[in-house]
């Protein structure tokens, strides 16, 4: 094994966490967050919602199954850095193509290992998610501290513009029954895969696409994707949503950032959560039937709710709440076919409990018979 270098994670409140690195890397900043997903590190690192963040894995053994060509949520890792307790020296899985370490290195993503990730997690839980920096060296230097001080804060940051697609692209059967226009704010690939597997044609459009351009595409429905950053900074999306969903009554489905944008478009507000929800085990109650869904989550902001209502947005009502902290996890329009969830029904990584939302959206598009998803045999039963 090559000699490891000393490295560390420094937070903006001055707390720092020693670790090691396998190779040199320049000091790299980002919001330091943790995710409790036990599996799915490759999906996490390629999820555009993590764009620009330094992600701490609370699961301690990372890299065990390597990386493969299938389990990606975008074309490359999106995170700024990775912090783990132990990085495997060797992977084992029949689909694996490469070691995690090498794959991250080939994309110049630093990974700091041997960190007391639990201490880091507990610190963030208590002090909140904050900016941080990873760097090589025995301890923080004034230059590194300075660099951290000058890095941007997450609040007010429009990262969706960075994460979105450059041009339009269309996937799925050209003769598909439904055509969906998907606004890409940093969309996870699995959302597309699911729409296509359900027999949809999807046109993915950049975040700034105006309503008129979308109308020209003659969509049957509108999808607003997940994405990184502060939803309040994505103001340009709101008129488009009001036009297409509100005025034109286009069936609309939003996930994560898309959920927050719908909330904002109809008059609600978003708040920054102290340390966010990131993991694959969050219980969400479906208010309609009382059932609990175990959901995949990745968000630092949430729509503010009060009882069943969203203050400022009379037309909306809350459909799902988080059972851990009572925050809003889903909403719908009281009259129009507009609904959204804060969590990730497309999972990847995470449980498939909420996949039925995709089928529900297709139903809203006018479907009569909806094929179930192959992976969850009973997903159509509620």
């Amino acid at each position: 094994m090559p000699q490891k270098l000393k490295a560390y994670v420094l937070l903006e409140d001055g707390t720092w966490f020693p670790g090691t690195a396998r190779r040199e890397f320049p000091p790299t900043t980002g919001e330091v967050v943790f995710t409790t997903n036990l599996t799915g590190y490759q999906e996490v690192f390629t999820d555009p919602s993590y764009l620009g963040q330094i992600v701490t894995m609370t699961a301690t053994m990372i890299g065990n199954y390597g990386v493969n060509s299938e389990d990606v949520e975008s074309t490359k890792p999106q995170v700024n850095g990775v912090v783990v307790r132990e990085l495997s020296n060797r992977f084992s899985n029949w689909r694996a193509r490469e070691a995690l370490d090498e794959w991250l290195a080939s994309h110049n993503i630093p990974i700091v290992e041997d960190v007391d990730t639990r201490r880091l997690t507990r610190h963030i839980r208590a002090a909140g998610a904050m900016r941080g920096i990873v760097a090589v060296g025995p301890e923080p230097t004034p230059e590194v501290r300075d660099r951290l001080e000058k890095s941007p804060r997450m609040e007010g940051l429009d990262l969706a513009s960075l994460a979105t697609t450059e041009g339009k692209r269309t996937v799925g059967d050209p003769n598909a029954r439904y055509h969906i226009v998907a606004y890409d704010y940093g969309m996870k690939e699995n959302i597309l895969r699911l729409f296509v597997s359900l027999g949809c044609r999807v046109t993915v459009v950049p975040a700034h696409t105006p309503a008129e351009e979308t109308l020209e595409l003659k969509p049957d429905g509108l999808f607003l994707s997940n994405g990184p950053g502060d939803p309040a900074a994505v103001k340009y999306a709101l008129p488009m949503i009001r036009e297409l969903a509100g005025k034109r009554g286009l069936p609309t489905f939003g996930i994560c950032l898309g959920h927050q944008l719908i909330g904002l478009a109809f008059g609600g507000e978003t708040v920054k959560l102290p340390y966010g929800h990131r993991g694959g085990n969050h219980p969400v109650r479906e208010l309609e039937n009382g059932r609990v869904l175990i959901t995949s989550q990745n968000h630092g902001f949430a729509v503010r709710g009060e009882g069943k209502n969203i203050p400022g947005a009379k037309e909306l009502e809350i459909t799902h709440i988080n059972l851990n902290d009572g925050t809003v996890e889903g909403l719908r329009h009281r009259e129009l076919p507009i609904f959204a969830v804060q969590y990730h029904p497309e999972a990847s990584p995470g449980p498939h409990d909420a996949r039925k939302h995709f089928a529900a959206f297709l139903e809203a598009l006018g479907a009569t018979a909806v094929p179930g998803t192959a992976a969850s045999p009973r997903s159509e039963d509620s």
Partner: protein
Amino acid sequence: MPKRTDIETILIIGSGPIVIGQAAEFDYSGTQAVKALKEEGYRVVLVNSNPATIMTDPELADRTYIEPLTPEWVARVIERERPDALLPTMGGQTALNVAMALANDGTLERYGVELIGADRRSIKMAEDRQEFAQAMRRIGLKVPEGVVVSSLTQAWEAVERVGYPVIIRPSFTLGGTGGGVAYNREEYEEKVKHALALSPIHTALIERSVLGWKEFELEVMRDCRDNVVVICSIENFDPMGVHTGDSITVAPAMTLTDREYQEMRDAAIAIIREIGVAAGGCNIQFAVNPENGEMLVIEMNPRVSRSSALASKATGFPIARIGAKLAVGYTLDELPNDITRTTPASFEPVLDYVVVKFPRFAFEKFPMADATLTTQMKSVGESMAIGRTFKEAFQKAIRALEIDRPGWVVGQTLRDDRLEADDVESLKAAIRTPTPERVFQIKRAMQAGVEVEEISRLTGIDRWFLTQLKELLDAEEDFRRAAAIDGELLRGMKRMGFSDRQLADLRGMREEEIRELRWRLGIRPAYKTVDTCAGEFPSATPYLYSSYDDENESEPYGSEGIVILGSGPNRIGQGVEFDYCCVRAVLALRELGYRAIMVNCNPETVSTDFDTSDKLYFEPLTLEDVLEIVSLERPRGVILQLGGQTPLKMAKGLEAYGVPILGTSPDAIDIAEDRKRFEELTRSLGIAQPPNGTATTLEEAVRVAAEVGYPVLVRPSYVLGGRAMEIVYDEASLRRYFERAAKVSPAHPVLIDRFLEDAFEADVDAICDGKRCAIGGIMQHIEDAGIHSGDSACVLPPYLIGEAALEEMRHYTRQFALSLGVVGLINVQYAIKDGVVYVLEVNPRASRTVPFVSKATGVPLAKLAAAVMVGHTLDEAGVPDEVSIPYVAVKEAVFPFSKLPNVDTLLGPEMRSTGEVMGIADSFGMAFAKAQIAADGALPLEGTIFVTVNDHDKPTVTPIVRRFHEMGFRILATEGTARYLQARGIPCERVLKVYEGRPNAADLIVSGEVHLLINTPLGKLTQEDDYYIRRTALQHRVPYTTTMSAASAACDAVLALRSRKGTVRALQEWYQLSVASRWAGGSLVEAGKAGAAEGEPSSLVKERS
């Protein structure tokens, strides 16, 4: 949905005695279930035959029945208690089987009892392999292909479809007997013929073998609103082919991508819905092809299991407790997560650590048994360890096993690692076969240069795990070669789980030197919390494990705290009974206002339940691990007399580091264990001892044996459970003993006692506060002297020992207790021969019989012991000199013979039982009968008895046989016995011995003509014959006795059963018959007050206020 209000009384069935495959984990789950349901206001009725359990303590359930777990006896409880519901999912296969029988025979319907948790239909679907396979196909999942055949011709067709290697499972044989794997046509033909012959219906299942595939388990819970959560994933280190109970297992799964894991999770959810587990937990096993990810469903258990206990400990999620609440109608989101207390139970735990479980075996006690690990479980216990990394947890789990390995180290000899040779080819050949030592053989193979890839190919163990091991080996080499040990190097090693002793051995240093160096360098473990949520939410429960990481989360209790050391992995000779003692002590200390800190590493136990103690350290019980905890906590003291030998072994070490030991001093323990010092004490007290001596060389042993006179009992000093203890009749046998069984050296002295033939043996358990000693109970052994006390049935109160001898034993016990300065428990073993009482041994600590005595008399000895250890007196606690009971309790031992083919069932001085049962009744006969039924040895009420005894026993057996004859039994006997009996006027028929031709005795047993076998060993010539007859009886479930006293007791029992119907009565009712009722409420303080009210001295509570 809130809890159900249409039911009031709920019956819970326990799992009975500890046997291989069904152990303490069901005491853990049953105890949780009882507590959970009582908390909800239900009236809980419990039936279990095992007295060495927490769940059968009288204050837990409203009504506690220690009765046999057969449909007939449980029906009597139902008849008496009229429960509204029966929860069958907490007591393992035993409870499920009894519940199903009661459902099938209409008992439940007749008394209006509803099955909750799992219904009849779903239990059947999960248990019946054909139905299960169909159900899996309905939901699009695959099971290993299998065909049921009833002829060789059909079998040839079947194997065409299934292919080699193939698994052959005969239908309806006990514990998979007669099953196996065939790799080719020849083996197949032989095994199929064998299987068809053994199967009572002459059919066998021919199943596709998935040997070498990866094995996973998921623990799943579902509520009545169909919410489903997966609590834990477990990956087996050993591939398919080794029973999961015998596998090294790891949580969470290490080598699954999210895609594969979620596919498995989806399948698990679909399975629990299809099978229809109404509300509760289940365990599902999967096999995954490492080449392409193909997934098969292996089996599903619609109940809590060994794995669910492990999963509960691994995650902090109390599966049994939540399962019980779901069974009465709650939904997961209505229940709090007991660890965080702020979030709901409807979530999936996440781990920020790695858990490794290691099985513990007992093959040293069964040298004839085949140690190859197969699909039939053979381990008797397990250790679990938690570390931040796999390597750390792996090494901790090994040192927690107490198998004389301070981590992943090879044995001192090849034999220790079950090897004949250690050349590369031999090693490669050895690791193909899974045995308890394979993981150490792998280390030798790696040291010999065999590559990870090749080891993976030979063993089927995933290369990821093997690489982890290789990294340990590489680190060892670096450490060994390092010029000097600096802080960074040492910390790096500790982070990989190396123990101080391991590191010392690598450098040729002493363990203490490494420890001092480490302390000087400030390298100490940090304690992390198991919190179900990987730190995402604050945790209210101090459930801790050590890791050499940065942040320590454990806040020391200081002098308010008392540390109780547990008993580690279950093994023969040290099982659940010591956990019982620890748990009782913890509860007593909490009641008395102390903060109880539990240390243990056995996931099956109640002591490691997160809410038993104030603080739980899930840590190996080694001096190093305990010292670290104690130096952080700075407790008022450490209690080590309740956890068996495990903590006792640490007494001197802890004392040397200045750790305060509560209760009896380590020096007193030493006097009792050191033969010379003990003999001085006995002589000074004027108490008789069998002539004895100690030897440190073979020749000395021969001389000592000649002095004390044959027969002699020989054993190594400091042993537990009679390990390597034997009765030797002459010098030649003595010499053979040393060749075969034990080494003798100045470091390993051997004790030699005159063996008192035909003596009665008795055990006395007592408690002493240093000034007064109260007798807990006197138990007379039913088996003859020479049979290990743990293996002998015993009766309380004694029924054949005269009052004078009893009084002498009481007196001696008090003398020992007071002169040793015992503060706490003491156990003394006596032999009575020709009216003389001899002391055999004194154990100034909790004995194996403490729970039995406590259950029989109602006096909570372990709790009282805790009280006296923190300075209270027996007077304060209201303990009388002795509680006499106007009824009879019999303890019977339960053996693992049916699981271990080729092992002789004959009892001896080496303990071999795994568990015990109790029968309680108003007469000896009935109590013994109940105990026999509970131990699965139901006695015949009529029929045929087969007698074959040695000359020595012929006079003794005659009156016993005469009584059977008078009851109308037909008597069969072998030639000598027959002639003897006939001459004394007992009609009997002669039967051929096995070597005399056919049909012989064994044939009669096989054909079901014999209903009870009375057999004592006849001598050299017929040794094989006897062995064969006993094994045959065992396999065909014919009850047998191998001693005269047991035969006589059996006769009493048959008489009792014939004369009246057995009745059941709750412990709470029995205790009303004596002063023990004062403890029935569970409170020491209240009991102390009750004692005071009756004019006994001042109570506990007064003293403390």
